[in-house]
């Protein structure tokens, strides 16, 4: 999710500095990561950040007409609905992944037994949410099928264009890039999820293009954090 924001802010040509903190969740006004700290203001989550940036005079979607804006919002909801939920499912509801990867990673800043307690608590929360929206009954295959359907829709919408809405990138491009890049580069037990995305060559080309255009140039300024550099390394591998 951090990458969505970095991509968005760089598309707007706004310089940023990425900082990692263990208590970041508590510093954020909404409890969700990431958030930006500008002067006296702290803003979190993609929607409010986009509006904040727009209020300061930078907007990526001004060139769109009303119908296109409606489409953009619809696709952003699709990505949130399908990809984000699938990522959460994989992280917290697939037992193998939970044991081997998620629990250690989530609990790493804390000493025992706090690390186990906090990660179990988070797992319980996520499972409750999955049950409320009806995903608790889904098997891993069904979730992967949903991801495939979502990627197919995104791939068909992108077609052969450089960005989703013609030649200019928008919030949708930033959001899609963030999610797909994370899926492609995060090490999991199996590669099934990233394989689903790799099936669509225009989506992988899209990710590579944005990465080269917005993250390589930023690298040269050497004001980016190690996260982007290591992420870049793993995609080009």
């Amino acid at each position: 999710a951090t990458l969505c924001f970095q991509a968005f802010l760089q598309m707007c040509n706004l310089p940023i500095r990425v900082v990692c903190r263990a208590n970041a969740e508590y510093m954020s006004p909404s409890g969700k990561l990431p958030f930006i700290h500008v002067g006296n203001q702290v803003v979190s989550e993609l929607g409010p950040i986009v509006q904040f940036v727009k209020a300061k005079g930078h907007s990526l979607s001004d060139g769109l007409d009303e119908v296109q804006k409606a489409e953009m919002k619809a696709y952003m909801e699709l990505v949130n609905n399908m990809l984000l939920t699938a990522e959460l499912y994989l992280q917290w509801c697939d037992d193998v992944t939970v044991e081997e990867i998620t629990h250690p990673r989530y609990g790493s800043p804390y000493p025992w037994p706090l690390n186990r307690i906090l990660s179990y608590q988070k797992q319980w929360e996520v499972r409750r949410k999955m049950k409320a929206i009806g995903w608790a009954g889904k098997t891993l295959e069904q979730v992967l099928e949903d991801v495939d359907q979502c990627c197919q829709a995104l791939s068909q919408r992108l077609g052969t264009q450089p960005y989703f809405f013609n030649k200019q990138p928008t919030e949708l491009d930033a959001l899609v890039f963030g999610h797909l890049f994370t899926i492609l580069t995060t090490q999991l037990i199996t590669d099934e999820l990233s394989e689903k995305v790799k099936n669509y060559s225009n989506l992988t080309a899209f990710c590579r293009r944005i990465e080269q255009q917005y993250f390589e140039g930023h690298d040269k300024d050497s004001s980016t954090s190690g996260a982007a550099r290591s992420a870049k390394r793993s995609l080009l591998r």
Partner: protein
Amino acid sequence: MAAPMELSCWGGDWGLPSLHPESLTVMAYAKFSGAPLAVNTITNFWRAPKGDVPVLVSEDIVISQPAKILNFLRKQKYNADYELSAKQGADTLAYIALLEEKLLPALLHTFWVEAENYCSVTKPWFASRIAFPLSLYLPGKMSREALNRILLTRGGPPLYSLTEVEAQIYRDAKECLNLLSKRLGTSQFFFGHTPTTLDAFVFGFLAPIYKVCFPRVQLQEHLKQLPNLCRFCDNILACYFRLTVSGHSPAGQDTADANLQKLTQLVNKESNLIEKMDDNLRKSPQHPPRKLTTLKLAAGGEGSPLNRLSP
């Protein structure tokens, strides 16, 4: 061919074939794609196969969620999206996601969480269609599940109180309605002249908001300001469900109100008459032997107010 497919779902009212958005979506899709469905409205909940509604039963196969039911119908060659391009198919998925994320929470709230609506309309309606003793338990359970879903998906910080969550979900729902209206524009359906899956979903979500008469109706009022969406719902009802719009709200509501007024007036007149008769009886003495004098006194009693009136 094979035995016809049977759909079990909640029944309808206020001019709609069903009040339940998901049931309505499936019924609309079946009409659009020409699938022969025998619709059973649930009156005895014990008999519903799994308790998930709507449920499609075809030979031995039982399918329960709208997306799965629609997939099944498509595999049986009842496909309403045949003429759509790949991009339009992708748009369909995106708009359905928009409906589920932005409109559904407010819809659930209007039906199941808003206290006045729930107590005066939703609970009695559903309870009347569920057999006792489930009717005492099931509406409450559905209400709790709706509230749970709203709070878990939209209720995170910084929205700490239910009123803030409510304000946010209604804002999102109104924005979603505006976006749908802009997307529909002046066309009859979302993709040209024939209805598709997206039209079925939009109809399923919008029609209950549009037609059901609730005491608290902020979403309905907002929808009525978007005439192309209202026309969209009315069109589908008139063309595919053969229920005339004129027989029901708002003209229907007006005639009902007028009838109610007339009835009230008649009742008032009757009660006035009865009161008058009571007065007369009280003024006249009650003992039977004095029958003749009673009559005279009654006449006198009647006469005296008149005398009093005249100067």
